[in-house]
């Protein structure tokens, strides 16, 4: 499993290829790419700045990844989250999961994203035509994460 928190861009094709190259047991890779949108709650968004808690962020993402490996039969996974200032159309987050079959890859990918959104210590601040504002947490993200409770 690879976990990275970085300011630099990442390459989707390179990251996905690493999950199956030379691994003939991999039959499926599911990936999710999160992007900066140009609007939020009716206002234009010029930039999005991501703050995080160095140290805890990496531990939190590794813990979420380990939990996915405990729940599904996975062969590999990659979680990359960017920090710093980003612009609309730029990727923020990549979650990619490799498994023998698609069902486990799809489920684990969604699980990791749902837990990342509600547990990993990142905070978004956006600039709009009216100025800067912190993005509020959304209840539907908690509901999405709650679906995986056992």
């Amino acid at each position, binding site marked *: 499993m690879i976990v990275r928190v970085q300011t630099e861009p990442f390459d989707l094709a390179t990251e996905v290829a690493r999950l199956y190259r030379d691994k003939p047991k991999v039959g499926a890779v599911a990936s999710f790419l999160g992007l900066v949108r140009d609007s939020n709650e009716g206002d234009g968004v010029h930039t999005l700045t991501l*703050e995080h*808690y160095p140290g805890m962020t990496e531990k939190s993402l590794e813990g979420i990844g380990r939990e996915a490996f405990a729940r599904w039969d996975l062969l590999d996974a990659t979680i990359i989250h960017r920090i710093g200032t980003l612009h609309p159309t730029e990727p*923020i987050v990549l979650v990619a999961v490799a498994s023998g079959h698609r069902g486990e890859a799809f489920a684990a990918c969604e699980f990791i994203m749902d837990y*990342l*959104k*509600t*547990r990993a*210590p990142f*905070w978004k601040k956006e600039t709009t035509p009216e100025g800067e504002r912190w993005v509020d*947490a959304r209840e539907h993200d908690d509901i999405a994460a709650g679906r995986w409770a056992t």
Partner: protein
Amino acid sequence: MKLKILYFARLRERFGLGSEALDAPAGVDDLAGLVAWLRQRGPAWAEELAPDRPYRMALNQEMATPESSLKEGDEVAVFPPVTGG
């Protein structure tokens, strides 16, 4: 009891402080007690850390609850609900 306390995002801006070393008085032995003590620092602290505000806490880089007990040298973080992804 010596503690390291970190603040993030809106709380960091509101308190004008990203981190500090604190010596908590006797009687402060869990996160609830620590927050009650921090609230006495002024209006911004009382307002942001009011019981009905949705702040979260971590203890030694793990999500924690008000009942989590403190010990010498712990790292505590106080922050708004997370919004990554």
